[in-house]
């Protein structure tokens, strides 16, 4: 569940948290001793509601039962509050022992605090079970975080609306997608919903065009150098321009939130007001509470971002990311690392997956995926030669925010294919 994305209205809670952040130290401290002495680990996670909250509570209890000298103190924290609480906590003397970690450039930004534990020595024996995705939680080859679930971005569409518009099968090329947009419009159905207010959903579009236009080597080089260098990135903006000229999005999409309320892009698809949206695989879990239609997940189908004619990118490369946790240096080791290993064990992973929050970090739990569409996402992701982390997470945080902003401006008609690149590179050089 990359519900770092669940911004919007809940941001108000974050706003309030601005004031509280300084006061909200972690409740229970930890002892740095190991062995038989009793240790307590405070655990900040973002599962404030829903099934995942129960899964974490059960995991903490079960781990304590198996390791009576380790007590896990679960502290669910509203997702957006991490943005302000983590910097404050890492700057203070009493950070939580375990906290939510999205990896990538954001994780790298946190390392200079000296409070994030290098877990490499504890994870080297088993991290291969998770597979290559664990690399997204490494900084300079050191494992500072461990993922517990994974995400792939793709199209979630309504089978009933596609049928109504006479679309037999989901598009596999941009030409087909354009044709389907036309068909849906002819049937008076909003073809695609997008939550531009939150900016990051816009970024998915540009990033996927970049992935289709750029060879994998170029993408990797861009991530490494934190510099969008290459004509293919300009091409991505041009592709986006032509696509947006077909006016595929709902009316007033610039003011639409992504995940909050029935009027959000997820809500529009959930309520049959739009036929599809480009979103992460947490989308079914987000849509369900936004509609009274109990059958919504059965109406949902999934297809990957179409191939772009002439693009130099691999058409099976995916855009994605995941959720994970980090330990802080005050936490008792190896207890903290061992608990994160426990979370990635097939038994716990099966429960995480059943909570409908994404793909399991440990492929051994894949059989627990309930939705057929999710199995499809898993197959597609498993076959991907390269998974490109969302640019805003892969880049250092300020560059990530800059690229999301530049793409959102572009959606609002305030920018050019070139300005996305120059704004991003400028933010990178101003570090």
């Amino acid at each position, binding site marked *: 569940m990359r519900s770092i994305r669940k911004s*919007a209205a809940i941001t*108000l809670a974050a706003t309030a948290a601005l004031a509280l952040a300084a006061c909200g130290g972690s409740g229970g401290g930890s002892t740095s001793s190991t062995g038989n002495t009793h240790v307590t680990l405070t655990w900040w996670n973002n599962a404030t509601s829903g099934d995942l909250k129960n899964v974490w509570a059960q995991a903490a209890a079960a781990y304590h039962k198996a390791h009576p000298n380790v007590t896990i103190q679960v502290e669910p924290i509203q997702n957006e509050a991490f*943005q302000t609480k983590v*910097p404050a906590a890492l700057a203070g003397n009493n950070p939580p022992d375990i906290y939510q970690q999205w990896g990538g450039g954001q994780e790298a930004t946190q390392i200079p605090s000296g409070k994030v534990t290098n877990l490499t020595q504890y994870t080297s024996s088993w991290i291969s079970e998770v597979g290559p995705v664990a690399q997204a939680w490494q900084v300079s080859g050191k494992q500072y975080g461990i993922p517990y679930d994974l995400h792939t971005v793709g199209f979630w569409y309504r089978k009933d609306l596609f049928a109504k518009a006479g679309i037999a099968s989901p598009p596999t090329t941009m030409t087909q997608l354009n044709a389907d947009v036309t068909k849906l419009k002819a049937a008076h159905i909003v073809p695609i919903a997008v939550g*531009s207010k939150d900016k990051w959903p816009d970024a998915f579009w540009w990033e996927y065009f970049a992935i289709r236009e750029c060879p994998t080597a170029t993408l990797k080089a861009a991530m490494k150098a934190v510099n969008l260098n290459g004509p293919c990135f300009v091409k991505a903006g041009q592709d986006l321009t032509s696509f947006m000229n077909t006016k595929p999005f709902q009316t007033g999409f610039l003011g639409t939130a992504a995940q909050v309320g029935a009027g959000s892009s997820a809500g529009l698809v959930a309520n049959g007001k739009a036929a599809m949206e480009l979103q992460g695989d947490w989308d079914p879990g987000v849509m369900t509470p936004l509609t009274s239609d109990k059958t919504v997940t059965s109406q949902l189908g999934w297809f990957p971002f179409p191939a772009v004619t002439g693009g130099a990118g691999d058409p099976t490369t995916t855009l994605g990311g995941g959720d994970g946790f980090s330990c802080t240096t005050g936490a008792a080791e190896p207890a903290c690392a061992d608990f994160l290993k426990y979370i990635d064990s097939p038994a716990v992973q099966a429960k995480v997956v059943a909570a409908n929050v994404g793909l399991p970090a440990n492929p051994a739990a894949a059989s627990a995926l309930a939705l057929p569409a999710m199995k499809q996402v898993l197959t597609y992701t498993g076959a991907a030669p390269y998974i490109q982390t969302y640019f805003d997470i892969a880049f250092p945080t*300020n560059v990530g*925010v800059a690229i999301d902003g530049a793409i959102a401006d572009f959606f*609002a008609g305030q920018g050019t294919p070139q300005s996305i690149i120059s704004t991003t590179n400028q933010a990178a050089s101003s*570090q």
Partner: protein
Amino acid sequence: MIHPNSATATAETSAVAVAPATRPARRSRGLRRKLELTLLLSPALLLFIGFVLLPIGIAAYDGLYHWTGFGPLSGFAGLHNYRVALSDPVFQHALLHNVLIAVLSIVIQLPISIGVALLLNRRIRGRSLLRLLVFAPYVLSQAITAVMWALLLQPGGFVDEVMKAVGLGGLVQLWLANLHIVLYTMFLVLTWQFIGFGIILLLAGLQGIPAELNEAAALDGASAWETTRRITLPLLGPTIRILMFLSIVGSLQVFDVVWIMTGGGPANASSTMATYLVNRGFQSYEFGYGSAVAVIMFVICFAFALVYQRFVLRRDTRGALTRAVG
């Protein structure tokens, strides 16, 4: 910003109070007074220094660094952050938006507030209920206001439907998605929320105007308009000037409603200094830069407050003191 006033008030009152005392007692009373002042002022002063002055100082200092908020302060940048912020067109636009909201609140909100306050000051049926209704939105938290209006203003939402139903369908806009309209939408929502506060303030001011003056004017043959124009409004002056002050300072600090409804978007069309600050400071982890922006914002508000106190409010505080002492 009320603090400087009350400080002056205390000082002047004390001077007046001390004067009549006889010579021999003066020294000990002066000492006692000093002790009293120290005792009574120090807790507030400590809090003020610890939670207002010190953070401002720290922010000004942090603003000199390229600091991400993690680890010790590093990357001394001198005044670079301040220069970048002041020359960033996004920040300039945000400031412009604040100024525009301030101007609109004086030009539009204030006259409406005065009009409604005058109306509600009359003996009309259901006056208490009307006063309550007008004030009600102010009681809501800004977050609730923002979420509520965001829902009402959705394309095809409640507002659009109501406008269509009363034949104003042609005026329906993309309230939150149109780059040229969104800022005015924000202003309307802010007006909806805060106008009740201004009206209550003005009503309180109206209570302070002696009824005899109006009666006397009426006896002298002044029309209702003349009475309002020549008697009521001038005597309401101090209240209006305080309200203007609060409106402008509030406009310079607008954050909650905008942040929740639009996040400052689309394409920064509704950004304010505060949304820019949070975007760059907290979201981008550019705490050094964010601090610099915060300091700039503080200086703008502070400079305005000083100038306003010096040239506009001074007369009012003088008058208030004269009445209080004499």
